[in-house]
């Protein structure tokens, strides 16, 4: 879409998204002794958010 022009701002936005996702207070929402699919909620959240971030970075980088 935007070619290499828009890549810089998009990447910065992704970094900021990551900073928000992996910090207080979002982390505190998932810091509960609950289980999801038999796995602790916090771990499910961490790996899911991380994977989503990587997918977005791939989309931007290979655009």
């Amino acid at each position: 879409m935007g070619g290499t022009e828009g890549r810089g701002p998009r990447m910065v936005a992704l970094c900021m998204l990551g900073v928000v996702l992996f910090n207080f207070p979002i982390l505190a929402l998932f810091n509960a002794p609950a289980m999801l699919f038999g796995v602790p909620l916090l771990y499910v959240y961490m790996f899911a958010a991380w994977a989503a971030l990587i997918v977005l970075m791939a989309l931007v980088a290979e655009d």
Partner: protein
Amino acid sequence: MLHGPVIVLSAFAYLGLLFAIAFYADKRADAGRSIIASPYVYSLSLAVYATAWTFYGSVGRAASDGVGFLPIYIGPTLMIALWWLVMRKILRISKQNRITSLADFIASRYGKSAALAGLVTVIAVIGILPYISLQLKAISTSYSILVQYPEVVMPDQPGAHTVGVGGDTAFWVALILAAFTIAFGTRHLDAAEHHQGMVAAIAFESLVKLLAFLAVGVFVTFGLFNGFGDLFGRAVQVPQLQAMMAPFGGVAGGYASWAWLTFLSMMAIMFLPRQFQVTVIENLDEKHLNKAIWLFPLYMLAINVFVLPIAFGGLLRFPDGTVDADTFVLTLPMAEKQELLALLVFIGGLSAATGMVIVETIALSTMVCNDLVMPVLLRLRGLRLNQQPDLTGLLLGIRRGAIVAILLLGYLYFRLAGEAYALVSIGLISFAAVAQFAPVVLGGIFWKGGTRRGALCGLIAGFGVWFYTLMLPAIARSGWLPIGVLEDGPMGIGLLKPLALFGLGGLDQITHAMIWSMIANVGAYVGLSLAAAPSAAEHRQASLFVDVFRQGGETGGGARFWRGTASVPDLQNLLARFLGAAAAEEALREYAAARGRRWPEQAIEADAELVHYVEMQLAGALGSASARVMVASVSKEEALTLEEVREVLDEASQVVAYSHRLEQKSSELEAATAELRAANERLQELDRMKDDFVSTVTHELRTPLTSIRAFTQILYENPDVDLEQRVKFLGIITRETERLTRLINQVLDLAKIESGRAEWHETRLDLREVVADTVTGMSQVFEERNIKVDMRIPERMAAVRADVDRIIQVMLNLLSNAAKFCEPGSGRIEIVMSEASGALRVDVRDNGPGIDPADQRVIFDKFRQGGDTLTAKPRGTGLGLHISRQIVEHFGGRMWVESHPGHGACFSFTLPT
């Protein structure tokens, strides 16, 4: 089965395999068919980030505080998102300036300062020692445990230095790794510091450690337990483990420490010497970054998925706490009698540790040689190095010595302090040390104001605080300093306690150290940079670095700044001394070929470009600071003043501005040309239309004329035509004359409208009146043809602004057309008026034969009529509808037709109110 010799043999077989891969890759590189010129190999080589810390230590960390190991990998993921901005710039700068190491990069930015290069080297070496000791500890511990198979016994506990150095596994590991690294990285001298063989081997190691770790993870999760659900389900029964599933306590403790660890790893992924080496120095193509940006984070995600399952599995399997959690990866397969898996784990851990040690020591040895030892040796006139014909041997010797020294220092740290800490805690001390490079590097590439003095003081301040708050406690805890220093502060001064400086307590050690060191570092760097203006050399380098994307060419315009005289033979000799005679000859030949000159040069006097080229070649082997000194030794350089540097820079920016203006002008010109072309085409079109018009008009005039002439001739030549016939002929002649008159009137009318010379008398008028009047005026015609007229006109309608006569003309045209096409006797015309959305609408519907869809599109064009005009006799002039539409459109309305052949036609027009 797993005896000492078997393990040692496997380890050596593995190292041998690595060597073979490196050897093959080097051969291929020499042949010009590199096997590492691929984004996938590049991404895998970045995974040298995952060391024994990741392989063994993450599980240890996870076993004590759950997700606490993750910031070390999430931080780099966040940083890599910024690589498109930051790393691409560093890559470009490094390629243009032939940067050979992190120290070289920093020194080069701040005016090619040798002092700064040395300082960075010292900080890097001291800072990395704990990290290297961590690898030694991991290898020797894993060996000591594995050799006890099938028993699971921990090796000697901290502080028990019962074994002498000669009997210590770690010592031999250090020596073997030193020998291996020397064979690997210092076989020959490369002007660009590329180690393609090493990169290939590292990429292979990244695969091995990932596979080994995943194998253990799958074994624990699905072999020992029945999948994730079963494992976590059992862990949740244990209260101590359940607490780890939501590990964050208060905001101040848990989250702050998490955030600082994330920040620390963001800096580490950029500024660890080995990461700088593989990411920047070994990079072959900037485009490889695009894939690495997501592949490398993906690798980190993959190698971390099983950390928690292994940690929980280990805590469930060894509940009594006798087994160190740092060894779970190895001890779990051993406890389950999985010999081969245990051996695979050992090899995986070995590959993680060796990968780190090889790259790190090669990077550090380059720095020690180029940025610490050589500048000193070159300055010692007593050694007369300037007269030595070939120094390549000396350079390689220094690097080999540096590798051995660094590994032995790492071992020393291991003996002194390493055993008191877990793996991750040791590594974090190194992370905090390299994070001190962040302000001077990031500030250096985005801010032109940073100066050499600011950088020097910032680094010294940051490193000093680091040493005081992290290194000193590590030494004290190992019993080499009185522990009172930690508990009561040095000399009993409580405010200076290394773990709670100035009374800042309640934080973990790393967070505490990072806060104070960053304040000191950034404060000194920014403060001193702003205090005094930069020198000429600093100003020049600052602009070369910060504006790197604005400079073209391979050399980046550095030659602009050199003024002086040097001779070509002197320069060639200089190159030969450091690169070897053949390589020097080759480099100069390439230089000449690239510029289309003949070599050997005929000119004895070298120009600025050649001098700059030689300096860049030397920088590849010596580092920029030493290269500068060496070139200065064979040339007479006129020092540029700050003013002159500014002038050169201004000239450059003026050239840029000129070229911008030129570009702008040329695009304006292009636009003007396009407009002219369009206008010309329009004119030609109009000309063609005029010709068409004239020929159509003459054709239309000739038709009635022909018929008039024919009938007059008949009457003239035959005076005895009977009366009935005569009346009929004269009737035809009259009708044709009328048609001719009408045609001429309409042509004149059209010409006036189209040329804009028509007179319009606009008034406010009631459209209902106009329509009704017109219908009344035509009632005679309708009666003659026996046509019924229906009018449906609303009670009240808004007024419109238009010319009464013109609107009557339109209505007359529509009504006479309708009357013309209706069957006499059964004809019906319907006139409907309505008002909608700010416009009045008039529909005139007839029940004639209707209009063919193909004709509907053209009947509003000039001289076009419905039906076949070639065979049927034309029933109009072909101008009426065209003129009507022109009139309606002149008053801002629309005119169109709807018709189905056989069901009449409905002409409609609107006029805005």
